[in-house]
């Protein structure tokens, strides 16, 4: 039986603005999180993901309901006790100069070192292991403000790991990163959970990546409702699409990614297969064509030819035939006509 790390019952989150007034962001939340799970909290902007994470990590009080962390109520933890259980990585990049990676990660030992912050050999050992877990060994003496955003975020994760938490909570750790940075952070989190048995809860906007790595989604709708299920189940049930429904942005159930819908431009039948077909289809859909398999009665037919490693595209409308050397010229031609 898996151990429950977090169990949340009819939780109410939001802000207290003065004693009688409060803004409720979400309520009736019932959620569970088990040891070794990797959970992604996803949902549109403004749904209250950050508020939820801040409440779960004790950075702001819950308005009602119950949060149990390792079987003990969250309010009953002192600040220090909580620091032994939960560590965080926050969205906004930290602004510190003149601090080395080693010094920053060593801060994760804060709850364990004494009043004067004396690091023992054991503490340094854990700093070393944390850096190794995030793949940042060799960066120890680098200055934090000279790292790339992705590297810095990895170091922040190492700091959180050095705190030896039972639960690692991250608030949009990939927000400021470029695509390779996003992929590598999400992979890292996935690995931390599946390979190293850490329990990870993160909010993210990188739905493609999250869908490929999370054990479960906490899918938060704009109205604050949260569904907890495997990402694939949420897609099949249509809940995922409903939450992210917006103008002209469709979730493609067949391919598992979001696509931008263009105005309808025409129909085309396409002959070809493999990667050539996939990417040609993408180019055609991008400019609004509906693509059909080859022998279909359409006005336009496209044939992908490959000879001696050279590709060409043969477009015909039944009367004329035109050949293109690359997709750019094909797209340009179709757009113009």
């Amino acid at each position, binding site marked *: 039986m898996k151990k429950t790390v977090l169990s949340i019952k009819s939780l109410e989150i939001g802000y207290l603005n003065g004693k009688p007034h409060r803004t409720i962001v979400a309520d009736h939340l019932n959620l569970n999180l088990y040891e070794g799970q990797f959970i992604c909290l996803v949902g549109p902007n403004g749904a209250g993901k950050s508020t939820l994470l801040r409440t779960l990590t004790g950075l702001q009080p819950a308005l009602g309901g119950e949060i149990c962390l390792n079987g003990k109520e969250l309010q009953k933890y002192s600040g220090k006790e909580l620091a032994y259980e939960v560590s965080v990585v926050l969205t906004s990049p930290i602004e510190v100069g003149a601090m080395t990676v080693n010094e920053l990660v060593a801060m994760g030992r804060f709850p364990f070192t004494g009043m004067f912050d004396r690091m023992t050999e054991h503490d340094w050992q854990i700093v070393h292991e944390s850096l190794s877990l995030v793949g940042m060994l060799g960066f120890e003496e680098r200055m934090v403000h000279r790292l790339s955003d992705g590297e810095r975020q990895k170091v922040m994760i190492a700091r959180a790991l050095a*705190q030896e938490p039972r639960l690692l909570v991250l608030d949009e750790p990939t927000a400021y990163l470029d695509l390779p940075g996003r992929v590598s952070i999400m992979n890292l989190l996935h690995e931390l959970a599946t390979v190293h048995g850490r329990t990870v809860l993160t909010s993210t906007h990188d739905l493609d990546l999250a869908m490929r790595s999370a054990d479960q989604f906490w899918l938060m709708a704009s109205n604050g409702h949260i569904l907890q299920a495997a990402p694939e189940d949420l897609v099949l049930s249509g809940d995922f699409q409903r939450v992210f429904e917006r103008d002209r942005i469709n979730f493609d159930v067949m391919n598992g990614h979001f696509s931008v819908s263009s105005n309808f431009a025409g129909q085309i039948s396409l002959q070809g297969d493999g990667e050539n077909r996939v990417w040609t289809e993408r180019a055609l859909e991008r400019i609004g064509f509906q693509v059909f398999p080859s022998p279909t009665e359409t006005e336009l037919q496209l044939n992908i030819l490959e000879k001696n490693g050279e590709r060409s595209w043969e477009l015909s409308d039944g009367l004329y035939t035109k050949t293109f050397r690359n997709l750019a010229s094909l797209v340009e031609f179709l757009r113009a006509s």
Partner: protein
Amino acid sequence: MQAEPIASKQKANNWLFWILPAVLFLVAALNLFLGSVRIPMGEIFKILFGQPGVKDSWVYIVLNYRLPKIITAGLAGAALSAAGLQMQTMFRNPLADPFILGINSGASLGVALAIMGVGMAGGLFIPSLTALGSFGLVVAASIGAAIVMGLILLVGRKVQKPTTLLILGLMFGHATGALVSLLISFSAPEKVKAYSMWSFGSFTSVTWTELSVMIPVVLFAIILLALMPKGLNALLLGEDYAKSMGLNIKQMRLMILISSSLLAGVVTAFCGPIGFIGVAVPHIARNMFKTANHKTLIPAVLLIGAIVAVTADMIAQMPGSQYILPINVVTSFFGAPFVLWVVLGKKGRSTFNV
């Protein structure tokens, strides 16, 4: 094994902790020899070691004027820098310091109330004649400083831009300045004179009696600060991170409030408002030691602050002349361009980056 790099880095900086006290000793000695009255070096040594056969007036000048003045300057510089360092870390703002945030003005208001306000009620309070009188002045100044600092804590903690905090401090300065003016217009001339004498600010008016109050207060506040480097380091990552690491933020804020109000208050009470040392010295220390670690920065700012203030005092005397400049003239002359450099500088400088 991983401990080595840090240890070696600290070793590399160790020499600075030999150099800085040496420099401090040097400028203090130089300051002792320079002054409007020319006293030969040999005679000064005789006076310091208590040997007889020196002109009485020279003995008086060295023991009761120059020596307390140098000690005062060193203490004031260290105190203001230590206050500036804590405040910069707490507000996460490179421009925070007692002068810029108007905390000095709060202290001034406290002093003005003590000299003129209490005078209106009882007419008893003549400042700085007895240890008790000076202690009252310190209490008044520290309370004034703490009130303004508390207000800024309430309002300014959410302020992100350094310049906004600057404006906030300016407004607090204006508000307290207006209250002081109000007091002045309702006070007896001799009390107004006592206040304005005080407000020129200098290290020269501090006597041994006053030092007997100033030294323990500064020491107490610095001991308090010496207990805080771990928490201050955690605050470098921001309050959310610090809290998530188990730091008791409220207690930390209270300790910083007490320590920096006492430091700013005691200096303002005895030396008057002194600008720019508190903002500049922490930056100098960060640049010099290339670290943000308060375990290094706290001793560093104490030493550098003392050096800067003793040097500023030396310049204020304009060696070889009969004139003495207000100390604020000197610190502003060098400090104001420094603040401009921080504000207008590249992004790297306006954050805590060096």
